[in-house]
């Protein structure tokens, strides 16, 4: 059994896969904040006493805090069960929400300082068409040509670009095994996509 977790956005999403990669159970709530309180009880409910033998955790890009919540919990679970832990791309999970549709699609997530995390993928097999980037909406409008925009930042990018179709779409842990191998064999470490805001807590 594989446990999949993603907390990189306002959604808190967990799923359990069984033999033949079959989706056995899935829980998803769009909660905004509060992943630190909700996530582990959600996993407990999802598992209902079952013990997975591997974990996949969304590593971002997305909310810095959210990503760390998911990864820290996954690290604790992996040590506690003594099972392997891998990272998966949270933007690819969003892109996966368009399912079997062909053609280019982009995952768009609000980042810091009014920027958007963006990445384009092709069609149902989710080949990466470029790297993930953090761009201002105007710059993203120039760079992102995919007609279909998915994710919690999609509407912002459509407004800046003036064309295409926006669909909300959250990273869904239930899509974890739709990701190509290279996007779900990442190091289980945050993919922040932006440097930290280096402002000391208390300036003298």
């Amino acid at each position: 059994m594989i446990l999949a977790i993603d907390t990189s956005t306002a959604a808190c999403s967990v799923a359990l896969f069984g033999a033949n990669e079959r989706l056995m159970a899935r829980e998803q709530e769009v909660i905004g904040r509060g992943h630190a309180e909700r996530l582990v009880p959600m996993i407990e409910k999802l598992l209902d006493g079952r013990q997975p033998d591997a974990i996949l955790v969304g590593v971002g890009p997305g909310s810095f805090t959210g990503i760390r919540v998911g990864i820290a919990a996954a690290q604790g679970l992996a040590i506690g069960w003594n099972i392997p832990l891998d990272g998966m791309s949270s933007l690819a999970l969003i892109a996966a929400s368009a399912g079997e549709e062909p053609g280019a699609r982009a995952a768009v997530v609000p980042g810091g300082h009014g920027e958007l995390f963006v990445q384009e993928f092709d069609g149902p097999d989710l080949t990466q068409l470029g790297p993930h980037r953090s761009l201002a909406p105007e710059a993203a409008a120039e760079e992102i040509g995919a007609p279909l925009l998915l994710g919690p930042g999609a509407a912002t990018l459509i407004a800046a670009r003036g064309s295409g179709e926006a669909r909300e779409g959250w990273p869904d842990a239930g899509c974890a095994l739709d990701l190509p191998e290279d996007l779900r064999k990442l190091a289980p470490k945050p993919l922040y996509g932006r440097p930290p805001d280096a402002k000391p807590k208390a300036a003298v």
Partner: protein
Amino acid sequence: MAVILGLESSCDDSAAALVTSDRQILAQAVVGQADQHRPFGGVVPEIAARAHVEILPGLVRQVLRDAAIEIGEVDAIAATAGPGLVGGVMVGLLAGKGLSLATGKPLIAVNHLEGHALSPGLTDASLDFPYLLLLASGGHCQLLEVRGVGDYRRLATTIDDAAGEAFDKAAKQLGLGYPGGPAVEQLAGQGDPEAVPLPRPLVGSGEPHFSFAGLKSAVQRAVQSGKYRPADIAASFQAAVVDCFVDRTRIALRKSDAPSLVVAGGVAANASVREALETLAAEEGRAFSVPPGWLCTDNAAMIGWAGAQRLAAGWVDGLDVPARARWPLDEDAEKVRGAGVKA
């Protein structure tokens, strides 16, 4: 005997430890992040949180290896749940929740201040409740009556800076870099504590509160005047802090019939502070206890030890327990004007 895994990530030290309910420290590891924060002259919350999530899992594996213990042999997981930089707190707390769910062992959400407050008992088996505690760390400066596990009465707090913060700011003004406490102490050893006239804020006032902001400004003026040797400024600053501690703690002792005085928190690592408070305790007819230096600064052994005592009292937490930026030990303490979040 219970074995507790302690996790700490509330400021700029990542730490894990395995301690037992009968005071054995089976293994412990602390990784400080001073090098990463030094360029900014203080702790940067996002940098701290990033470091914790990189470092902490390795430390958990390390202490299990060092103690030759399987995770399944651990009886409870104790993780700091606040107060502190909440992004970092979440890292240790969520790792603790994951470990708790996977092992089926209880989670104990520890107040970091309770870790400091109970830390003397880990190495001093003769220390009994109640005791009067001077808790002086990077984020706090309080006088508390520790009546038992989970039973704290705050007698006083700082109305502006914490004591460790005062050391850190003085160090910065003296060009000593971050973290400042140990550097100021070292330089003070070569100086004359009477060379620079510095104020002792609130000394003599009836309530035993603390204030260090005026001292900070006076140090700044002394540095800018160019009249004094840095070592003399450091020594005079340290002497002023010690005088404040002694005067304030004496007032608190006279308001409390606790038989022992204890000093804990990072600033308690300072030898002048320890000596002066030991003398004060003797003058006031109280026993004195101070944890060893490594147990004064942030560590996970004290979190595990606090967890052991909470477990013994039957206090465990749910997997939905929140991380808290602010979490006073004495929730009923009166608000002190100016004390703000540091109370």
